[in-house]
């Protein structure tokens, strides 16, 4: 019964039609996630090898399984509302050109830094995360450290006066860090620091990433520490817990591991941990889960806004 109702509902609303480019861990997880989400229709998954395991996995489940990369993106672009790019920073430049000229939105899961950095929960709080809803826009998901740490950075900095410095350190399961993460560790640090300085306004920011190989794999943990002239610890706690409740709506495994405390006068620190939802990736890969959850959430928010814009017209 429920099944039929859902199908009825589906036929009544406009589903968000998307293409995913990139068939690695991130692309496959995104695909599984959106296939289960009635708000989306995954029109196409695009890879570069017809026999890649990422593509084979979705045989018979997606309208267009394609393997010619950029050429296929050109072919399919008119049939979708937007594109998720799960390839590399280098390839993203070309992909974005195609989406832009077709006036489609794009969600960038690479560390290219082209797009507007977005943390879904903070869109309404921070003007730089502008989502105007009109035309074509590129949204950057920044990094897993950025997605997990920005809510912390926001709650702590929002309750501090005269911030001097902010630091984010994450530890992730080594198994969840593929070649791309390892090769791009400097870009990861750079783009995360860029987001943090925008979110907190701190004149000095630092990002640290540690890979932990222990078995069973560890959950992702992110600690943010902030130095300021004065800090309202109680308010920071209240606000952090409010934000975490909201983030949990799209990342159920997001939780506070260490509540804000003051390690010494002038400093405040707190830690969150992230358990993955386990769509395609194992649950220890909370770092990959949070960036994909943010990508999907961003697409939904943008679509809602752009539909409102269209109605206004």
């Amino acid at each position, binding site marked *: 019964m429920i099944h039929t109702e859902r199908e009825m509902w589906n036929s009544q609303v406009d589903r968000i039609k998307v293409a995913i480019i990139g068939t690695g861990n991130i692309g496959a997880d995104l695909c599984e996630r959106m296939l289960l989400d009635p708000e989306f229709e995954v029109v196409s998954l695009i890879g570069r090898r017809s026999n890649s395991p990422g593509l084979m996995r979705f045989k018979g489940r997606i309208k267009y399984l394609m393997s010619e990369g950029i050429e296929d993106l050109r072919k399919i672009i008119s049939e979708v509302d937007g594109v998720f790019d799960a390839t590399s920073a280098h390839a993203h430049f070309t992909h974005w050109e195609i989406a832009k000229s077709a006036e489609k939105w794009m969600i960038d899961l690479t560390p290219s830094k082209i797009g507007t950095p977005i943390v879904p929960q903070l869109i309404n709080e921070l003007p730089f995360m502008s989502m105007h809803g009109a035309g074509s826009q590129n949204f950057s998901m920044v990094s897993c450290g950025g997605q997990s740490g920005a809510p912390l950075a926001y709650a702590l900095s929002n309750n501090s006066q005269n911030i001097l410095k902010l630091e984010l*350190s994450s530890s992730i399961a080594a198994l969840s860090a593929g070649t791309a993460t390892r090769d791009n560790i400097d870009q990861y640090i750079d783009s995360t620091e860029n987001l943090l300085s925008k979110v907190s306004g701190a004149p000095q920011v630092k990002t640290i990433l540690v890979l932990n190989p222990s078995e069973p794999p560890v959950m992702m943990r992110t600690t943010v520490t902030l130095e300021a002239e004065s800090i309202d610890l109680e308010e920071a706690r209240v606000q952090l817990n409010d934000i975490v409740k909201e983030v949990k709506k799209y990342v159920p495994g997001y939780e506070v591991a260490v509540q804000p405390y003051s390690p010494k006068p002038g400093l405040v620190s707190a830690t969150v941990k992230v358990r993955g939802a386990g769509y395609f990736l194992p649950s220890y890969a909370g770092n990959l889960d949070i960036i994909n959850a943010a990508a999907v959430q961003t697409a939904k928010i943008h679509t809602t806004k752009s539909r409102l814009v269209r109605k206004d017209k």
Partner: protein
Amino acid sequence: MRMKNFYDVTLRDGNHAIRHSLSPDFVKRYCSTASESDVWAVEVGHGNGLGASSYLVGESKYSDYELLEAARNSLNLGGPKLAVHTIPGFATVKRDLIPAIDLGVEIFRVATHVSEASVAKRHIEYLANKEVIVHGVLMMSHMIDIRGLIHQIKLMESYGATAIILMDSAGYFLPVDVEDRVKAIKLETEVSLGFHAHNNLGVAVSNAETAIKFGAEIIDGASMGFGAGAGNAQLENILATRLRLGDEIDIAPYLRMSLLVEEGFMDNLPRTTSSSTQSGLSGVFSGYAPQVKQISAELGLDVNILWDELGKRKLVAGQESMIREVAQDLMNL
């Protein structure tokens, strides 16, 4: 003729013992004295290396560059080489490695946790194309079997590292463990090998000597053992051992270096204590000692129970922020 390359980590690992407060003035005095010795290299900086000053692992009182500049100006040209330790994830090429090259650093040791050599690929490749010596460091090397160790060594070599240093960061090894590893590596690779000991179980000098005996080319030591946790292999004692075994060594400058440290840091000289013995047995990173001591005192928790639990959870270097979480779990807070 020096037979081995003795590598002095006093001004880097020793920084752990004084919460990274080493001053340019001390660096100058030490480097001037080291220039009278035949030590191959002097490593300088924050205990966790370039760019590591942070709330997480401790803030440096003086910047990397103040310390490196002091060292550069005091080391004779043609004398001991200026070296740094650097960990990808803390340091980046642009922010840390390039300025260090410009400052005249001659040896870069790019370090990762023992099973994660591939994180160092880009940094090693970058440095291999510059006019500097680049070595790879495998930290916490007790946390992998010998087969895995050899695989990681070959990875680092393939990126362009011209020597690989095994760090016994937890001070867990016995001489027989060192013998097994050095022998196996020498049998299966052509790599120049270094060894870096910690003294948690009181066998650091024996471990260093064992590494020499079985063919390691680079031996780390610190004057007065000045280093993290229970400290490093005491440099002057490694040399004294070599002297007794017949090497031609002028030990006098090493004794003067040792005296500088002894007099300069009387209250902070590392020792093998009950706590460091437990940390060694638990196989936990030596650099955690100050935080473990502080947090267990703050929460009223037995320090050895905390070490034991950190060992069970297999923490790696750089996870200082988890010490509090683990302690709180133990206290059911």
